[in-house]
């Protein structure tokens, strides 16, 4: 079988997409409630937060790292922004504060990893605990709730019939894709993940870019916090627990290699959508959430197993 070169080069993404289409088709046959505009928008809405965290994580993982702290950063950034809103800060400024906190946590991660030479696993494991503690300290462990209509619009608003969060997700993914494929930042992300030593010897400012990648990761987690807080009309210090694992799952299902150097943002989006559709479909079918856990786990393993299998058959 001779594939067009574009498809051959992105076989993995097209494969994931095919799985996604089949999954949607199967669920549509099993339940009439799935393929409706309302429900599909609902799926998109539920996917947004995971998708935003996962896109940052995709950068981190392509660069050969890992970030376990994104869930905690989300909580910390959320409560800081919520406090700012409660203090009467203008909405854009409060959002900026929240995203700034997220990016700041990412900056600390990046500095520890690049300049402190800590393994990413350790640095972000520490940050996971520190940011969570920060969120709890900042709120005394209680949620911060009740925001103005203009902030809530971020969750409830629509532009041309498309919910604002979905729009944000689409824009972020488009930007992230372009940055990864067309810019120096993206090129160096791949190069560092593929071979850090060779990159360094080719004059790539490895430490600078590695730090930047974690800043992006933290910032995008904080953006997730903005949308989550708007949706719940409340910022929880215990929000985002295990979100890092969902994001890793979406990234991996989307074909990004944990070894670094390979992967794509589009794949991650499809990965996040697969997880969203799966959860939604199983809910519609009345499958218990316990079984859902099992199914999601099986999907993650199957995705990577197929990758491995695919690579071996090419040898």
């Amino acid at each position, binding site marked *: 079988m001779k594939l067009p070169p574009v498809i051959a080069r992105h076989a993995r993404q097209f494969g994931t997409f095919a799985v996604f289409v089949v999954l949607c088709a199967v669920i549509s046959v099993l339940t009439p409630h799935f393929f409706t505009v309302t429900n599909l928008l609902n799926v998109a809405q539920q996917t947004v937060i995971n998708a935003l965290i996962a896109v940052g994580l995709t950068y981190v993982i392509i660069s050969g790292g890992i970030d376990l702290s994104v869930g905690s950063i989300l909580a910390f950034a959320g409560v800081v922004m919520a406090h700012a809103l409660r203090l009467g800060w203008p909405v854009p400024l409060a959002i900026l504060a929240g995203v700034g906190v997220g990016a700041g946590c990412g900056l600390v991660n990046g500095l520890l990893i690049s300049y402190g030479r800590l393994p990413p696993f350790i640095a972000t494991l520490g940050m996971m605990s520190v940011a969570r503690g920060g969120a709890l300290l900042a709120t005394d462990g209680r949620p911060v709730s009740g925001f103005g209509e203009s902030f809530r619009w971020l969750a409830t608003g629509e532009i041309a019939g498309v919910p604002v969060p979905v729009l944000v997700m689409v824009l972020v993914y488009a930007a992230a894709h372009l940055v990864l494929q067309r810019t120096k930042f993206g*090129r160096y992300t791949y190069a560092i993940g*593929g071979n850090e030593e060779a990159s*360094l*010897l080719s004059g*790539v400012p490895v430490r600078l870019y590695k730090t930047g990648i974690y800043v992006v990761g933290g910032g995008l987690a904080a953006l997730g916090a903005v949308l989550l807080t708007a949706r719940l009309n409340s910022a929880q210090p215990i929000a985002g627990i295990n979100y890092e694992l969902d994001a890793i799952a979406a990234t991996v299902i989307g074909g990004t290699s944990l070894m670094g*150097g390979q992967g794509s943002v589009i794949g991650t989006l499809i990965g996040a959508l697969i997880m969203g559709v799966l959860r939604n479909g199983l809910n519609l079918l009345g499958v218990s959430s316990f079984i859902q856990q099992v199914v999601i786990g099986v999907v993650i393993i199957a995705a990577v197993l197929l990758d491995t299998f695919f690579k071996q058959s090419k040898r």
Partner: protein
Amino acid sequence: MHPAPAILQMKGIAKRYPGVVALDGVDLEVRRGEVHILLGENGAGKSTLMKILAGAVRRDAGTIALDGRECDLATPRAAQAAGVSIIYQEFNLVPHLTVAENIFLGREPRGPVPGLIGTARLRADAARLLRELEVAIDPGAVVADLGVAEQQMVEVAKALSVEAKILVLDEPTSALSDKEIAQLFKVIRALRARGVALIYISHRMEELFQIGDRVTVMRDGRYIATREIPQTTLPELVSLMVGRDLTEHFPKKPVAPGEELLRVEHLSRAGVLHDISLTLRRGEVVGLAGLMGSGRTELARAIFGADPVTAGRVTVKGREVKVGSPRQAIGLGLGLLTEDRKRQGLVLCLDIRANTCLASVDRFSAAGVVDGRRETAVAQKLTADLRVKTPGLHQRVVNLSGGNQQKVVLAKWLCCEADILIFDEPTRGIDVGSKVEIYQLINRLAAEGKAILMISSELPEILGMSDRILVMNCGRIAGEFTAAEATQEKILHCALGAHAA
């Protein structure tokens, strides 16, 4: 004397990868108790053929017969059970286990208590194997503490312990000293006397005549010819390999050196480099000779800003500079072609274009956005210019042969227009044809006015290519010769001279 029976017959072996025919009906016949040389340029298909024999790669067509019986050899395990052992260039040893544990890894003898390993027997069996090889290695030593040559002997012992009938050695001497090579050859001859069939891959032509019995030449994935070693000659083999006559091995053209581009004075790095001074002029090729571990690579890395220095002065194009990072060095017009292209030269999972442009992304981008079309155009021109064999620029570098990979590393430095180039072993593990191409390229670069420092362990290469020759010994420059006065003897004398000469 009539020939021993064939122990291995591979017939019509074919393997195709997407876009590339790796092997196209290759035959190989190896006899019991012979050293069979497998010869071919990089990309000729030797490695693929051996991986098929080892069960690591599946063949698309062809048959393999061992002792006249057809076998499948579908997995590495099946191949090993059939008596095929391979010693790859990169060893398969567990660094933190002992020699004995490595030799019997996966086949540990049972101890007196069920479930425990018989440590004493393990040690004794390993010691016996090593004694048979007549090598002085302590079976209790940790592999990570051993030198390359010793690790190789552990691999050989491991192959013996599974009673290998066919032993494949892939470039076994590429990291060995002359003395270690002599020891290896002794072991190879002993194995041959025991009836083991050895398949030997090497690019060092002079070795073939020392150790080989027969030679099979491959080119472009095809079988070309098999010859008895005593009845062939070096020129014949070379022309079989490249399919054309190589009239001049070192096409050196004398160039009048221009202005000084690089001056290094009293450069030191505690414990590694001592008071190194050298100069490089436009149009000059300066050879840097010396034994492995004499500090040549360390010097290159120090000049390039990859390792810190403790003292010394570096002047680039008349301006005194502090080179604190490779990035700064590249900005000053330096380029370093590393010794280990896979680990330090290339991002293997990226494509040719990305690798070619890696050191010059800055120059192809405005406001952080990379101009892919310009990159493609430049990469296209360079790959064509260097004759990189590839179906396209989107080919991942990992899929290229060694010689072509090296050309991509070269393309990277040409792409950023470096004019002070440091080549660290530019032709290591590269076949004769590509070697000459790289020599021609080095000459062309010199003629274009670049200054070149060439580190090499091959004396003919140093002598044939250099305008001036520096010799390192124990982190010092131990001697300097002009091309006219240098001889192999003088260089060796200098490189081997008493420590702290």
